[in-house]
């Protein structure tokens, strides 16, 4: 009996120990420490010199940090537009690729391809396209749309980020929608067609409700990646012109790593955590309720 207990304990340590150790040191401890540092004037260097400043950081954020609230507003607008645009495009692409097109395999590859390249690279590539490529296209075709100073004004830079994000993410969501369509019972669709359901009706009453689990997933994935956008922001607009396209993640980064206000940065990062949790949990709860049993 005793031997068995020792063996159980040993197995638990061998199997779970390593994972538990990495998780605790890399994720858990830093996360918990974050709550403490949010209330200090930590400068990033000396942990022991971080003075407890109580509510100072929060007071500063809530009363005297316009840029933070601007970046929150920017991030919310960006998230709403990209989430809708990405999912509508992805859904349509999946519907089209569900038909027996001759080029469907290669098209699936093409639409998915931007996704395997990181935001850092894509930001630089599109920086070139917006500043040089579009300009040449505008000169040649005469469309003034292309000759806009794309990264030069707050409005166009905002839309520039949206274009790149949608281009990058739509293919990924498309793949998930394609898988969901493939899993639909064929007889149900046939029955609806025989009953005289039009395409719009088919879409509204059967396709959308039946792929609701996929919609839940895709909304979750796009909302969390749009709300946490950083890489693209860093390399496409650098938050500019000025700080007009600064996302929340980018604002936190500059506060801590450029201004060296780690305490304040941590406080923002913790608020960021609460915002992300609130938004994604609400979304999953809302869309889960709409899921039907197949």
């Amino acid at each position, binding site marked *: 009996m005793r031997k068995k207990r020792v063996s159980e304990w040993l197995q638990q340590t061998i199997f779970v120990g390593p994972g538990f150790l990495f998780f605790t040191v890399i994720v858990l401890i830093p996360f918990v420490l974050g709550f403490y540092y949010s209330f200090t004037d930590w400068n990033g260097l000396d942990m022991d010199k971080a003075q407890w400043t109580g509510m100072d950081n929060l007071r500063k954020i809530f009363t005297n940090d316009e840029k933070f609230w601007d970046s929150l507003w920017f991030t919310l607008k960006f998230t709403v537009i990209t989430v809708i645009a990405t999912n509508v495009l992805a859904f349509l692409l999946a519907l089209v690729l569900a038909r027996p097109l001759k080029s469907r395999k290669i098209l699936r590859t093409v639409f998915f391809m931007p996704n395997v390249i990181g935001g850092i*690279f894509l930001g630089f590539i599109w920086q070139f396209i917006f500043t040089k490529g579009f300009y040449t296209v505008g000169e040649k075709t005469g469309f003034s749309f292309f000759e806009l100073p794309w990264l030069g004004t707050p409005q166009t830079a905002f839309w520039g980020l949206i274009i790149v994000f949608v281009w990058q993410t739509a293919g990924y969501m498309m793949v998930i929608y394609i898988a969901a369509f493939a899993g639909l019972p064929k007889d149900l669709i046939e029955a609806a067609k025989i009953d005289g359901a039009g395409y719009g009706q088919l879409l509204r009453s059967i396709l959308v409700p039946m792929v609701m689990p996929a919609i839940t997933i895709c909304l979750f994935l796009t909302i969390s990646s749009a709300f946490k956008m950083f890489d693209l922001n860093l390399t496409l607009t650098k938050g500019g012109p000025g700080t007009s396209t600064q996302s929340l993640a980018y604002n936190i980064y500059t506060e801590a790593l450029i201004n060296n206000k780690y305490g304040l940065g941590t406080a923002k990062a913790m608020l960021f955590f609460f915002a992300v949790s609130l938004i994604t949990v609400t979304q999953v709860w809302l869309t889960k309720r709409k899921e039907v049993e197949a």
Partner: protein
Amino acid sequence: MEKEEKYGGSTFVMEIVAIILGLLFLVPFYFVAINSLKTLGEILVDAASFPSEVIWANYSKAWEVIKFPKALFNSVSIVIVSVSLIVVVSTMTAYRFVRRATLFNKILFSMLIASMIIPFQSIMLQLVRITSLLELRGNFYGVVACYIGFGLALSTFLFHGFIKTVPLEIEEAAVVDGCSPLGVFWKIVFPLLKPIIITVVILNTLWIWNDYLLPVLVIGSNKDLTTLPLAITRLFGQYTKQWDLALAALAVSITPILIFFLFLQKHIVEGITAGSVKG
């Protein structure tokens, strides 16, 4: 869904529209490819046409400026070591969680799942501090340790879901034959996990390969460990507006992952679907 459907007129129209859209999706790659072979002067005059004279020298210069072989080696080795260890650590954790669902293990598993919602930004600053204290900062194993820590939750979750479907009888037979618990796991269970291991490997490879913020913070000033995303960012910091050089550098840096994708795309697409449907 509608496979038996005939290839009619409306399908043809859709095919044309889809192909045009597909070409539009490829335009950015076209711009990078043609302009990486031009002189800077020609890029500035006309960024849309083919090069009048092909300048391969852009590539040899870019290759040296970003120290491509070194950066590629760093990226590849960080990915290989991190992903292998993530697979080893998380399969073992998940296996134990399924087979011994004690209260302690259940709590641990829930904590792991819940942690997936924490954005990297809420951890990164404290992580810089912790990794410095443990002397993990600026060294290879420090970066790997961070990836194991952050990769663990999703991977364990995916393995957990899969192991639940592995019948216990196979293991019981092996135990009767005198196999040790570790032996049962490695010889019997681990080989059965192959499909889900492919998914986990792909998801983690794409993430780690393209990751920027974690290596920037954890590698710090150690230039010997520069990965491809770091190398390209440094180049843009030094040579602003030198598009001939920059585009050639971008082209070589995105080539490895594009090759990876084109060769393994069937697995990648399946892996991503499996990963997100369960995730």
